[in-house]
C-alpha cells in the first residue's frame, strides 16, 4: 500500500516510553494517560477513547481520520514542547522546570509576549499562574520565549480600551 504521510501513526509502547522519558527529564512526568498518536512528523496527540490501535487504523482506512485526540506536544530534536492542553493534562505530575507567574506576567504571557524573568533555568519550561497551566516556553538567561498560538492569545486590553 502507498505510504500516506498524513496517515495516523499510533506510537508503540516503546515509543511512548521514549516520550515519557523525555518528559520525565524535562518536567518529572512519569505517566501519560492514553494512546499517543502522530500525524505528520512532529505533533503528538493524546487519545483516551476506547478504540484500540486496530480499530483506529481501520477507521483511518475506510474514512480518512483528520485528527484523533488532542494536540499534546511537539518533538523538537531532543526536547518536547507541551501544548497548553498538554501542560494542563499533565500538570499534577510536574515536579520541575515550572515557572510561577504573577497576575501581570500571566496576562503578558497570554498576550503572546515574552516575559522577562531571570529564572536560572535553561530550555523548555512550563508556565503556571495560580492553578492555571499556560503552556510551555523557552527559558534563556533573562527571559522566557513565548509559544502561545495566535488563536489562544489574549487581546491587548490597552488597545481595546
Amino acid at each position, binding site marked *: 500500500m502507498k505510504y500516506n504521510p498524513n496517515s495516523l501513526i499510533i506510537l508503540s509502547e516503546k515509543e511512548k516510553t521514549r516520550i515519557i522519558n523525555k518528559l520525565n527529564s524535562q518536567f518529572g512526568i512519569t505517566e501519560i494517560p*492514553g494512546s499517543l498518536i502522530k500525524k505528520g512528523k512532529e505533533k503528538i496527540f*493524546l*487519545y*483516551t*477513547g*476506547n*478504540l484500540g490501535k486496530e480499530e*483506529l487504523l*481501520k*477507521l483511518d482506512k*475506510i*474514512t*480518512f*481520520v*483528520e*485528527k*484523533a*485526540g*488532542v*494536540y499534546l506536544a511537539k518533538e523538537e530534536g531532543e526536547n518536547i514542547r507541551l501544548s*497548553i*492542553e498538554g501542560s*494542563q*493534562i499533565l500538570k499534577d505530575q510536574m515536579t520541575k522546570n515550572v515557572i510561577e507567574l504573577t497576575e501581570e506576567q*500571566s*496576562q503578558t504571557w*497570554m498576550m503572546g509576549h515574552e516575559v522577562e524573568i531571570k529564572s536560572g533555568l535553561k530550555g523548555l519550561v512550563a508556565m503556571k499562574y495560580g*492553578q*492555571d497551566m*499556560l503552556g510551555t516556553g523557552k527559558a534563556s538567561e533573562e527571559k522566557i520565549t513565548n509559544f502561545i498560538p495566535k*488563536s*489562544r*492569545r*489574549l*487581546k491587548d486590553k490597552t488597545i481595546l480600551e
Partner: protein
Amino acid sequence: MTKKQRKIPDPKPLFVERINKILTDKKDNQAYWEILKKTPVDSIRCNTLKISPENLIKKLNSLGWIISQPWEKNPEIMIIEGKKPTNHPKEIINEKDLAKLFPGEIGRTMEHLLGYYYVQELSSMLPIIALTPNEEDEVLDLCAAPGSKTTQAAAKMNNKGNIIANEISLERMRILASNLERCGVTNTVITRKEGRALCLNLETEKIKFDKIYVDAPCSGEGTLRSTPKTYLMWNIKTIKYLSKLQKQLFRQAFNQLKIGGEMIYSTCTHAPEENEEIVDAMLKEFENKIEIIKPELPINTREGMTEWEGKKYDERVKLAQRIYPQDNNTEGFFVSKFRRVKE
C-alpha cells in the same frame, strides 16, 4: 450609559405567514415576534473536563461577572446576567442594573482561551442532555461543527468511550478541531466526509454506535435572535431541499445504530418540513425497528405538530419537542429522540 435600539431586517412575508399558521394564539404569536427583537441571554457551559462549575464561577465573579445556574441538575450550564457596572463611558446597563458585556467580551477572557467554558446558547445544550452519553458509549456526531455538542458530550463522557465527530466542510472542520483542542477533548476522532457517505463507509465495516446525534443542517429559523441575517437568507426552496437531505441523513445514521442504541435528531428551525415531516417519514420507513421517545428536557417545550399544510403526520410525532424562544427566553429548537429496537 446609552441604550440602543436593535436593528433587525423585516421578515419575508411567506415566513410571517408560516409562523402565523404555526403560532395561532394571538398572545403567543405576539410574544414570539416581540422576543425576536431582543438579543438572547449570554449563556456558557462550564467545561468540566478542565474546571469545576464552582471554581469557574469564582473566576468569573472575580471579573465582576454575575452568574446564575438556571437548571439545578446541570450546574455546568450558566447564564451571565451581566457585570458589575464600572462607569465605563460605553457601558450599557440592563434591566437588572448590571452592565451588559461588551461585544465579543465573553470570548476574550483568559478563562475562555484556556478552555474553561464554551459559549453556547441554552437551547443548543438540550440535545446532549436528551442523549445522555456515558463513559462506555460509542458515539457518532454526524454533523459536528462547530463542536458545541461534541465538547458537551465529551465532558459528559469524562473523555472516555469514543466519539466520531464528522463534518463535511473543511473550514467548519477546522473550527471544530480548534474547539475540541481548546476544550481538551481527548476521546474524539474527527472525520471529514459527507454524512451519508460516512455512514455507508461505516456500514461496510459493520461499525455501529450506542448513541448517534444528528444535528441536521437546517434553515435556522430558531436562530433569528442571535443571527438576524437569517431573515435575509430565509428561503422556502432551501427548506424543501434541506428536508430531503435531512431524511437521507436520518436514514443513513439510523442504520448505524446498535439494537437498543439511541439517536437524537435535532434542528434549530421551526419549519415542520425539517422537523415533524422527517420524524413522520422515518417512523413510517423503519416501522417496527424504531421507537420514538419523549426526551427529558429541563425547560418548557411543546409537543410536535401532527398536521401541516394539509399533511397529517403520525400521532407519535407529538413526542418530539418544539422549543420556542418566547417560552424560555432562548433560541428556537426542535429535539426528537429514537431507539432502535430491531435489526
